[in-house]
Every structure is written in structure tokens, then in C-alpha cells.
């Protein structure tokens, strides 16, 4: 692809001319959406983009890739969350999302407007799109970042992320390459306060894309409520072999419902056939980062910990006081789960004053107290 290679050369020589502190391009956030519904992480990233752009003396911008149908509405929302500019790429091939036309449209916008940084959610779509674009542009991409900052000296983006199953943290930079691209883990940054009165510029771009694309979507099945995703859940209640039988998981569903969470599992429970493999947390399952992780009847094997040790708060319930899960738990109850879980459910019900009362985590308090607890 000679075109993209030329493109890259132009960008890196521009970076070279201005010297090491040259990342003066804007900070873009790609707004992920299904129809008119934006993924929450997009607005989390808008707040980060504002902060990074302020440190660089550039502007925060949003990119909406779609068929144009909901673009205006999403653009307005992006402006309310702090975008100074919204680039709308509109083409029938951009909805529903498939990687090929999306990456071509985004690469086209990059070629035209030369951003310094592009942020996307580290979701299945964000990673899919980011990897394709970074390959086309031959630029650096850092996956699944949990913290971002501008180096005050070099003005490079310092991207910090967990690696090796969360056993180490690494800070990554991409010197001499623009744009600097990162996918960012959902739920790590708070959503910026929306300001309905904010103003911003909207730029419309019409990418040239083939009408027939190599991948097309035949069906979309939104997640059923009882199998809501572990990703992005504030509260996860997981059960292990200590649950003894598939039907006992209804106890965990009750607790999860009271806490506004979803049910996960250890591989022990999955291998026993009690829970679907899609619920498995751990090295060979999913890596999760809820505010609260409740481990019920789970011993705490290292492969399980690899998937949940980044939770803000861990609560363990186990009848074996020597279970390793207690070594990493903020709170633990040693006891029979068939007594303790019902007691927790009763206690929560008692504390919710009246019907319909909700339960939420104040992420700011959770984060602050986590840091204090770690001291």
C-alpha cells in the first residue's frame, strides 16, 4: 500500500522538523456507538482528551464514524462532553461497524487533519479498529492503557498499562511516530460532567468507500439481561467449586441482583459444567476490573487471581480460613457460603430503604480508599 507509506513519511518528517517536543496535533477520541447509543467509555475518554490536550496546548476532538443517521446527535453529545471539534465521517458502509471501512475512513481523516493522539476504548470494536488503523498508518499503538500522561519534557504520550496478566505495569512511548495511538480500558476514568451549553465545530467528511465490503453483518443479538457482560460491570459476584451444584448459582444471582452486578465463575465451576465458559474469570477466561469483586467458594488459584486482582475491592467468602483468596482480599468472611450469602442478601435488603432503591458505587471514593488501603 504505497499510499499509506507516503502518508507515514510525511507525518514523521513533520515530527522530525519540529524536534522532540513536536506532538502538537489535536487529541482525538473515536466515539464507539451502536446506533444512537454511545459506549460509556467514549465519554470517559473525552475527559482524558481534554486533560491531555490542555497539557499539550492543543484541542480535544471527537470522531464519529457512521452512516450519518445518528451522527449529529452523537456530535452534540461529544461537544457537551468537551470536544472542541467533531469530525463526522458519513457513509452507508460505516454502519453497522466492520473494521475495514471504519479503518479506511479513520485513516483518511488522519491523513487530512493530522492528529497528535488518537484514543479508543479497549473494547472488542475499539481494539479491532485501532489495530487496523495503526497497521495502515504504521504507527505505534498501545493496548488497554490504564493511565495516560504527557511527558513535560518531550511532550510524548506516556501510556501505562498492565502486562503479563497484571503482574507488571509498563509505560510505553512511541517516539518519532504520529499519531500516537492508544486503546484505553473502560471504567478507568470517570465520565466528564456534560455541559449542554458547550459549543464546538463540526466538520463533515465523506470518505470514498466501496459499496460492497468484505465483511457484512447478518444478525445482531443484544446481550440478554441475565447474561450481561462481565466487561464494564461495577460489581461481579463469582462462584467456584464451593457452590457444589449448578442450581446453587441462583443464590449468587440473587446477591448480584441486590448489588447491581453480574455473575462470574472460576474455571473450577466452568469445568464442572455449572456455568457457561463465557462467565470464566482468569488467565484463560476474562480479565475484569470491577469496583467490587465477590469471590464465593473460590480458593484463589493464581490463574484465577490473574483475571480479577485489579478489582478495587475484593470480598472473599470461603469456609477454609487458609484459602489463598484471603491473602489478596480486602474483606473476607470465613464461613459456610450457604449461610453467609443469604445473610448478606438480607443485610443489603435491610439497608436499602424501601422498594426500588438502587445501589451504586461512588467510583471516586472507591479509588481514593483503594489507594489508602494499599498504603
Amino acid at each position, binding site marked *: 500500500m504505497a499510499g499509506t507509506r507516503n502518508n507515514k513519511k510525511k507525518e514523521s518528517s513533520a515530527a522530525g522538523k519540529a524536534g522532540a517536543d513536536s506532538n502538537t496535533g489535536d487529541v482525538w477520541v473515536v466515539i464507539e456507538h451502536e446506533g444512537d447509543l454511545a459506549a460509556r467509555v467514549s465519554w470517559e475518554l473525552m475527559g482524558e482528551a481534554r486533560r491531555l490536550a490542555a497539557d499539550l496546548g492543543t484541542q480535544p476532538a471527537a470522531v464519529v464514524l457512521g452512516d450519518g443517521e445518528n451522527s449529529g446527535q452523537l456530535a452534540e453529545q461529544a461537544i457537551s462532553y468537551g470536544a472542541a471539534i467533531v469530525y463526522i465521517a458519513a457513509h452507508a458502509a460505516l454502519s453497522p461497524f466492520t473494521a475495514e471501512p471504519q479503518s479506511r475512513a479513520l485513516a483518511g481523516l488522519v491523513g487530512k487533519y493530522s492528529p497528535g493522539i488518537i484514543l479508543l476504548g479497549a473494547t472488542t470494536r475499539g481494539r479491532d479498529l485501532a489495530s*487496523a488503523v495503526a497497521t495502515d498508518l504504521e504507527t505505534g499503538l498501545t493496548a488497554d492503557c490504564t493511565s495516560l500522561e504527557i511527558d513535560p519534557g518531550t511532550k510524548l504520550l506516556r501510556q501505562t498499562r498492565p502486562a*503479563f496478566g497484571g503482574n507488571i505495569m509498563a509505560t510505553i512511548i512511541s517516539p518519532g511516530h504520529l499519531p500516537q495511538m492508544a486503546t484505553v480500558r473502560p471504567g478507568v476514568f470517570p465520565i466528564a460532567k456534560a455541559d449542554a451549553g458547550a459549543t464546538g465545530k463540526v466538520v463533515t467528511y465523506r470518505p470514498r468507500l466501496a459499496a460492497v465490503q468484505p465483511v457484512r453483518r447478518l444478525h445482531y443479538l443484544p446481550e440478554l439481561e441475565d447474561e450481561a457482560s462481565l466487561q464494564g460491570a461495577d460489581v461481579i459476584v463469582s462462584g467456584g467449586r464451593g457452590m457444589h451444584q449448578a442450581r446453587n448459582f441462583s443464590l449468587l444471582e440473587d446477591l448480584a441482583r441486590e448489588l447491581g452486578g453480574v455473575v462470574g465463575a472460576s474455571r473450577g465451576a466452568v469445568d464442572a459444567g455449572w456455568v*457457561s465458559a463465557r462467565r470464566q474469570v482468569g488467565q484463560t477466561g476474562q480479565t475484569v476490573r470491577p469496583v467490587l469483586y465477590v469471590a464465593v467458594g473460590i480458593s484463589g488459584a493464581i490463574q484465577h487471581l490473574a483475571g480479577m486482582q485489579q478489582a478495587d475491592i475484593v470480598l472473599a467468602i470461603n469456609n477454609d480460613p487458609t484459602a489463598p483468596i484471603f491473602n489478596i482480599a480486602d474483606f473476607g468472611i470465613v464461613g459456610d457460603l450457604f449461610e453467609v450469602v443469604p*445473610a448478606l442478601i438480607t443485610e443489603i435488603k435491610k439497608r436499602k430503604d424501601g422498594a426500588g*432503591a438502587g445501589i*451504586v458505587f461512588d467510583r471516586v471514593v472507591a479509588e481514593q480508599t483503594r489507594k489508602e488501603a*494499599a498504603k
Partner: protein
Amino acid sequence: MSVHSVVCVKQVPDTTQVRIDPETGSLIRQGIPSVINPFDLHAVEAALHLRDEQGGRVTALSMGPPQAEETLRKVLGFGVDRAVLLSDRAFAGADTLATTFALAAAIRKISEEDPVDLVICGKQSIDGDTGQVGPGLARRLGMSQVTYICGLEDLDSEAGLIRAWRQLESGRELLEAKLPAALTVTEVCNRIRYASLPDLIAAAGKPVEVWSAGDIGAERSRLGLKGSPTRVNKIFAPPARKRGEIFSAADSSPAAAAATVMDRLQDRGLKMGRSA
């Protein structure tokens, strides 16, 4: 009807054992066993399943140090037909962009002899955890890109189409992609087989071909550390989790323990009641 799949498999350190040396601040590499990236076993299974159903061939491809041969030996034992290891000092230190450059060059070479219909990767590697190599290969090879597959629906090699379910945060979608396609598969896509005795015996007689940078005709400036736009600036240990407050239900009562824990959770940001 027959399909030629290239499966990308990576040898990774057992990440549960990876630590940072508190003295030097560097990664402790010594004594850490290497394993096949667990998600790649599902990629191998997907390829073998399609071959067993429709005929064709499975080629396993890995880039890594000489000892990564063990990983390829293991997948030969599952019944993979051919194994290629890219091993050369020039490949060392590659980030995902330099990795896809090398793997794509190798896949082009493999394709010259026997055209490749599918490239199948794991959803991510457990050391890098990026999930960027599969999509990168799709772009470099000009193949259809279908990631995070949670179920293969069917492959119609006559029509040159594959249909697969893709896992999203908000649900699932059924995609139809033109061949050739580059896929990444998740752990729920299939169940990994046990190696059968005949396959294990056949594997013992199969070579692992080792290719250098020269063999795939790749420009050295685009490989390894040289070809990698990203640099690791710093590594450090994450804040360690400590043992917290453990209450005994037997000492008080399940109800009392539950009440104490709820107090603590409320101190830590849990809000409930109408005010929430």
C-alpha cells in the same frame, strides 16, 4: 472443497509466575516455564476442526526464539500438517507492528506454495495482552478481518464465505466474510481436543522448518526492535494487594459478619438507598 489455514501460535512465559526483581526493577526471566499461549490452542482447534470437516491443510506458524520449536512440536501432536518457526536475531524485540510485518511475509511465502484461505490467531497473547496481531495481519495481507469469534457458524469454500459469531460487550453479531479471511478466536469458540496417539506418532516424524529473516525476504529495518514504533519506557510492579480484614462467621454469626462487611463496603464507596 478444501481449506488451507495458517494458525499463528506464540510461546509465552507462564505469566502467573512473572515478577519484577525488587532490587533491579527488571523482569525476572530465569526459571519461568514457557507455555503455548492458551488462546492459540483454540485457534489450532478451529483450524483442525475445519480441516477435518472439509479437507485441506493446517500450517502452524510461530515467531520466537529457537526454543519456540517446543510449541510447534506440541501443535504438530494435535494433528497440524506443517510447522514453520520464524527465528532470527533480527526478529527480537518486535512490537505488534514488527511482528505482523514478519508473520505476513511468512504467510505470503507459505501462500505461494499453497494458497492460504484463513489465518487464525488467538484473541490475545497472555504476555502482551494486546489482541493487535490478528487485525494487523488482516490489514497487511488484505484479508477480511473478523475478531473475537465466539462461535464458527459455517465455512462455504465454494462460495468463498465464512460465517462466524463475534462477541461484543453489548451482545453478539453474526458476520459473513469473504475469503481469504484473518480470524481471532476466543476461549468459548470451541473445546480443545486431546492429542490422539496416531497424531502424536505422526508428529514425531514431522520437521519444524526454521526460517530466517532472509528466507522471508524481509527488510531488516522493518523487523524486531528496529521496526517497532513503540518503546517500553519503564516497568514497575503494580501496587501489591494485601491481606485485609477477615471476619469469622463462627465467632459472631453470619448475620453479624455480613453487617460488618456491609459497613466496610459503605466506607469504601458503596451507596444505597434512595439517595443512591
